[in-house]
């Protein structure tokens, strides 16, 4: 099952819903990995909506498992990208040409949804035109508050910053602009006293 119920947290932490078909003049859907399941569910509820949509899909570790099924929904445009970064030029072009009435459907990991959402808002898309449904990995995109480097797909707390090597504590404090959670040095008071990493949400 690709769904996960996030525990209650501080106001800064994003919350996710379930994608609903909405009226609109254009429909852009972006998903990664198991996020495909949310789009497939949407296609069951409203096949015409998905046929009218432009889908950008990033399989990540899931390889070919979802691609044929998404294709079978018959989206107006279907683009498979090797990574979120690789899809950004296309996403930017779509958003630059977009008009009011566009609906954006995001599904999959927090990192993907957060980055695509911040890109869309940057282009002027109203937040209320964006829906998000979390599916799959609960890994987080983290920013180190010390060196500002971003570490993707963090699954343990604490973790090691991929840029400066500090051991960072995973906070729920979230930046919508950076689409990242905040990581703070865990052994600042007592250097070297680093707790054993545990899986997130364990």
């Amino acid at each position, binding site marked *: 099952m690709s769904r996960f119920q996030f525990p209650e947290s501080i106001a800064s932490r994003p919350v996710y819903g379930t994608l609903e078909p*909405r*009226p*609109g*003049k*254009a429909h852009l859907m972006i998903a990664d990995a198991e996020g495909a399941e949310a789009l497939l569910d949407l296609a069951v509820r409203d096949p015409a909506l998905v046929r009218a949509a432009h889908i950008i899909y990033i399989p990540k570790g899931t390889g070919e498992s979802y691609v044929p099924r998404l294709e079978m929904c018959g989206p107006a445009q279907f683009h498979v990208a090797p990574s979120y970064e690789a899809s950004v030029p296309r996403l930017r072009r779509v*958003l630059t040409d*977009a*008009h*009011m*009435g*566009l*609906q954006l459907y995001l599904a999959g990991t927090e990192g993907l949804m957060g980055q695509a959402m911040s890109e869309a808002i940057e*282009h*002027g*898309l*109203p*937040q*209320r*035109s964006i829906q998000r449904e979390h599916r799959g990995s609960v890994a987080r995109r983290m920013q180190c508050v010390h060196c500002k480097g971003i570490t993707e797909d963090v699954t343990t707390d604490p973790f090691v910053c991929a840029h400066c090597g500090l051991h960072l504590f995973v906070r729920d404090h979230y930046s919508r602009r950076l689409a990242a959670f905040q990581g703070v040095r865990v052994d600042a008071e007592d250097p070297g006293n680093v707790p054993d990493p545990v899986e997130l949400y364990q």
Partner: protein
Amino acid sequence: MSAAPQKAKAGGGTIDVVVRAIVPLNDLVTRFEFERPDGAPFPPFSPGAHTIVEMNDDGRPRKNPYSLMSDPSDTSHYAISVRRDDEGRGGSRFLHTAVSVGDRLSVSYPVNLFPLDLRARKHVFLAGGIGITPFLSMIAQLERQGGRWELHYACRSESLASYADDLTGRHANKVHVYYSDRKEALPLEDLLDGQPLGTHVYVCGPKGMIDWVKTTAADHGWPGDAVHAEEFLAPQPGDPFDVHLARSGIDVHVEPHESLLEAIERAGVDAPFLCRGGACGQCETDVIEADGELIHADHWLEDDQKASGKKIMPCVSRFAGKKLVLDR
């Protein structure tokens, strides 16, 4: 609830003004310009704000809201444009017929229930008839700030199109006027299509137009918070009725041509209000007892609140029945 200081007087303070000019624009609409008796500047206002003009119409106090249409950066005067409504209860007719240059009136401090959303990347204004007024001050501000805007203005005929010449003369590329006597219709669907991301729509006009814009925009996928509307309801005349004000301990008779709020004020009770048009929520009053029917006319209360019979907006709503007791 909010940290705002409590106002000493219902509806906020008032400003004494002198009528400095009366400019008829066409058969129905006249502009009134006010200055202060001592020539002092007016408090600044944000575009979209309205003021409530207090009138003494043949012994009957009237307080009617009008959008401020002057340039917000010019604090030497306030201007309103008033459409004469011969069927209405009188406030507009009083201004048109009984007020002369040099007369003294008092107006409320400006209140804004229809502000520009300055996060918008572009502003699209949709005006129906006299609904043009708030957009005049909005346009003045956006022109100064270099904001992006366009106006679509639906009028009955060329002779009744207040400010249309002036607007098209100054902003030929941004102003589009549609005359219904020439069978021209505001092409709402087309103009909602193709607006850049971040556009906000503002509509001011008759209720039918507002509903049309809201539903069409929603069908096109516009989120509700990018669609702004202002509709002042004029209090409608109705059958007379009696009301008991429990807190003040007095009985008031509401005449056919006055609102419940006006009757309460006439009895000397300082009741809260801001818009006097059923829009702001300020006058919301608890109903203690109602043996009869509350005739709700506001668009503030939710349907279930209206059905509950526990609340009334005295600025526009009335009552028919045996007994009404309000917590006022």
